């Protein structure tokens, strides 16, 4: 399952990253190298081993259904690259 330039292009699209053709070339060779290294995992016998998502064995952590103060709208929008004082603004999402 060798990684190819087209795979890298597809991944970049999934990750929403624009890559120049130079970047694409460099990344392709780097990713091939790294993926080749991590392939070693596949040789480890893990039959019956339950995947470990958390090092800490916690479960059932909840909060109560209580209202807590949020952000004033001005603060919510304050880091937005573009807003109109009420909404975040983005180029038309029609056709997305």
């Amino acid at each position, binding site marked *: 399952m060798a990684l190819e330039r087209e795979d890298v292009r597809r991944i970049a699209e999934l*990750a929403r990253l624009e890559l120049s053709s130079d*970047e694409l070339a460099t990344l392709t060779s*780097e*990713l091939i190298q790294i993926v080749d290294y*991590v392939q*070693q995992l596949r040789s480890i016998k893990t039959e019956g081993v339950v995947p470990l998502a958390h*090092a800490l064995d916690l479960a059932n952590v909840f909060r109560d259904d209580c209202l807590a103060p949020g952000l004033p709208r001005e603060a919510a929008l304050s880091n*937005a690259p573009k807003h109109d004082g009420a909404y975040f603004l983005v180029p038309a999402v029609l056709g997305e």
Partner: protein
Amino acid sequence: MMGLTFWFRRFSENNAVAGLARLDAIQLQQMLRTGQISSLELVDALLEQYAAWEPRVGAFLNFRADQARDQARELDRRRSAGADLGLLAGLPVSVKDILCTVDYPTTCGSRMLRDYHSPFDATVVARIRDAGGIVFGKTNLDEFAMGSSTENSALAVTRNPWNTEHVPGGSSGGGAASVSAGICPLAIGTDTGGSIRQPAAFCGISGLKPTYGRVSRYGLVAFASSLDQAGPMARSVPELALLLEAIAGHDPRDATSAPNEVPSYSHTIAEPLRGLRIGIVPDHFDAGLDAEVDAAVREALGAFRARGATVREIELPASRQAIATYYVIAPCEASSNLARYDGVHFGHRSTERDRTDESPLARLYCRSRAEGLGAEVKRRIMLGTYALSSGYYEAYYLQAMRVRRLIRDELLAAFQSVDVIVGPTTPAPAYRLGEKANDPLSMYLEDLYTVSANLAGIPALSVPCGLSRSGLPIGLQIQAAPFAEELLLRAGAMYQQVTDWHQRRPAA
């Protein structure tokens, strides 16, 4: 930074408090408590140190002397009014710029967040403030903590105070440099695969990655959520204990924070430790290890033995997969955690408006991310996106999670027969700036001693244990079972009682 020069001039004329920067946090706290010095005097003495060192090492991304002085004045006022100021009363703490602060931008070392202002303080930062600590600037880091040299910062270069041609390590390189240079006694770093311990080793200071869940992650901008943990950096282990005690504890805003009680680390650290059972892993001493580091670590083991410790070899075969496991899990989580940086609700948005054939929104996403994120971040996002994508998830992510369990179980089993595992923190001392910048895989392989602790969630400490012939510090890693920070800190303190590596300083 306006007005700073004035204060430097004033204090170089009046050197009454000169030398404060050489004292450790415990001593300073004592002097503050007894009124020998004021917080303002301490801050001013450190500002002098800042003026001397910062141009050479570049530890900080944002630093506000006026703000630090205001906080110090306020603390002095409260102290004179008889208030109990808390555990860190008047002590300056530098904060890695990946922890949210309301009074500084939180950039994560990224062009993406260069102008980002968090509307809230990270829980760690809030606890420092509540304990009377002074937030003493935001320190440089590899972009989003991805790296081990701080060279991946998009915003500044940080140099190793011991030799400015060398890297300070990373990703908490700015924090390590700030303590090493004596600009502040305490620093907060974060550690996802060694990012506290490795720069601590490179800069000749002590650093602790706590047990996963010991310190709240709320307000720690996520790189790899199941591995990230904030922790203390300082010259000596008792200082780490002090800062850990201030920041540790359950946080209802972090579902992964542990409900366990927080012991008084700063008190229990003084308790003597007898019959420490040390495990060493033969793999850690194989051909990849630098000879000087090897010698320094063996000498350190001798020091432990001299204090009554026993040393035995333990095998950790699954841990040989730690790097491969880590470089699947961390990028997978990162690819998702960093999806939010798309130029819509915060952060950099591309202004480019060409190629009208494409959807303008898709264009905005791809361009904003291309412009706002650096090469290493993109590399890891790509790697993680690939490993999670349809057809590969099973082979990479799921397999890595299984191996992760093997690594953790193997370590937990080892702690049935030994109290701590001791070894090198890094395979070699700090390398030169630019030396490994073009070889990502070899950079990743440098993390081989540190990543297991993150995968297993166990606490791990790095303490200085020597200097190379070229004058660069060497770090000793000590790991312990989950929530065994007390033991770990006592072991580190015991070592520092019989050695003075932690008291060495880079030449001014």
